[in-house]
């Protein structure tokens, strides 16, 4: 591929072979824009024979700067950055820079792979030998692959952490908003209490009244504040062995240990309602709610009730309390209001 080696060696004291070694991606053209020789990597990328004497602009297409169509245009850009493609690979932009040679020896255009280096190396099947040791393209490729591996490892770690977090959430026993127990914790505690042979306990199913109004009028932050108020009432009223759980948006279940007395359960419920009804203020706004309570108790059954039955019966009682007006309590199986006067079934509103 050597057309005018004498001229070049006269000008810069380099043989064509030396040029191949130093700049495997060079194209040497004469003053008329005819190719004298092209470096081995260019030949590989051209995918065809490059004949000495063929026109430079048949081999490459300079995209930026625009309108470079002959040698005069090219030499005006000497030393500047060129963006160009080989006509054999029009979708792989390359970088280049040209410099004119003295004494009629033409010009040398040196190229490198641009940002599409990874694609170019794969598409042209380039090897380590196709790059000058001074060319950082191989290091870029190395970094590219190393980054992909590191990113893959990081992604796996993130996925594992994410699934661990989900698993932990599923196993969580605390309601994050109020700090009370959650439904899962209550189910476990109920099962444990029912498993103890001589244990009598009561269930209070408590549902807030007028909570929606607070939420709608003063916003969710006020609603959250009210839930916090209820939680502190419940915590303040219960003994260490008892448990209070938030089981829905404004629904709570209380387990009162060591109790076979509906009177005591009723008075606990009554106290809770009274304290929940105390108005609180949030951001200068007055928030007042109430609560209805349904009560069930293991001692009220001849056989050993299941957790579902206890909860369900407390729920039935709660429903009856709600129907009787707000701020009331109802014991499951008790005589309905009207047949027996009871101050607890008086409307507090």
């Amino acid at each position: 591929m050597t057309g005018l080696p004498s001229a070049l060696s006269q000008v810069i004291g380099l043989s064509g072979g030396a040029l191949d070694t130093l700049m495997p991606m060079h194209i040497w053209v004469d003053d008329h824009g005819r190719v004298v020789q092209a470096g081995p990597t260019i030949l590989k990328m051209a995918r065809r024979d490059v004949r000495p004497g063929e026109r430079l602009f048949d081999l490459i297409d300079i995209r930026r700067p625009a309108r470079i169509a002959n040698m005069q245009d090219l030499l005006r850009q000497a030393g500047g950055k060129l963006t160009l493609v080989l006509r054999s690979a029009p979708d792989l932009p390359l970088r280049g820079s040209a410099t004119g040679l003295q004494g009629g020896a033409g010009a040398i255009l040196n190229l490198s792979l641009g940002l599409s280096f990874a694609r170019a190396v794969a598409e042209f099947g380039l090897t380590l030998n196709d790059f000058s040791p001074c060319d950082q393209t191989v290091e870029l490729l190395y970094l590219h692959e190393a980054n992909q591996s590191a990113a893959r490892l990081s992604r796996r770690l993130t996925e594992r952490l994410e699934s661990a977090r989900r698993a932990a959430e599923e196993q969580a026993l605390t309601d994050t908003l109020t700090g009370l127990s959650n439904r899962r914790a209550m189910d476990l505690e109920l099962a444990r209490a029912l498993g103890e042979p001589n244990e009598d306990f009561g269930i209070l199913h408590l549902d807030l009244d007028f909570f929606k109004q607070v939420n709608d009028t003063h916003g969710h932050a006020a609603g959250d504040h009210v839930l916090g108020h209820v939680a502190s009432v419940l915590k303040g009223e219960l003994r260490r062995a008892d448990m209070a759980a938030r089981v829905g948006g404004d629904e709570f279940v209380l387990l009162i240990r060591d109790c076979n007395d509906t009177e005591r359960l009723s008075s606990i419920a009554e106290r809770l309602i009274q304290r929940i009804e105390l108005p609180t203020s949030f951001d200068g706004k007055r928030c007042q709610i109430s609560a209805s309570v349904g009560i069930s108790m293991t001692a009220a059954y001849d056989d050993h009730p299941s957790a579902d039955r206890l909860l369900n019966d407390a729920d039935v009682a709660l429903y009856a309390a709600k129907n009787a007006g707000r701020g009331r309590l109802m014991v499951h199986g008790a005589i309905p209001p009207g047949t027996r006067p009871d101050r607890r079934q008086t409307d507090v509103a």
Partner: protein
Amino acid sequence: MHGLVNRALQGFVVTTYGRETWDEVRSQAGLPFTDFEAMLQYEDVYTLQAFDAASRVLHKHPNVLLEDIGTYLVTDAELEPLRRLLRFGGNTFLDFLHSLEELAERGRIAMPDLELPIMLLEEEDQSSFRLRARWSMPGIGPILLGGLRAMADDYGALAFLHLSGIEGQDECLHIQLLDTKHSAGRRFDLGGTPA
């Protein structure tokens, strides 16, 4: 020690001997977790305990275990991305040997907190070399012995390697390169997609 190093030990045990064996190693080492995470840092004591336990459970001399781990790092199919990164070191096994001096720097490019051994290649004559390696933990010599034997195969080179003692903080290896084109070796396409 970086998670990748710990992960190499775990990966070797799991791939070669199975999950149950790793569970036994982990339990004997008293590790407070089931798996090393590649992207986390661990106290050195975990690495040392896990290694000692593996040596006991597998009935392998520590040097033999280290050498096997070195071989595993280069030859295991799942670690193909690592083999590729190593092959970036040069076009021939000889180029690769010379590139070992750059390995620590290359590792830092890939992962800034990964500390790889610092290596120095001394040329005794055209085909024999002495490699000195210094690392934050003992045992880099045997790991390199296994890894470099596997890399010689990978390049299709015939080389004779043996441990040649410890000098100060350096563990030394002697490498006799007999034939750089002994076999076809394994294929490496620069532009190939990492597995």
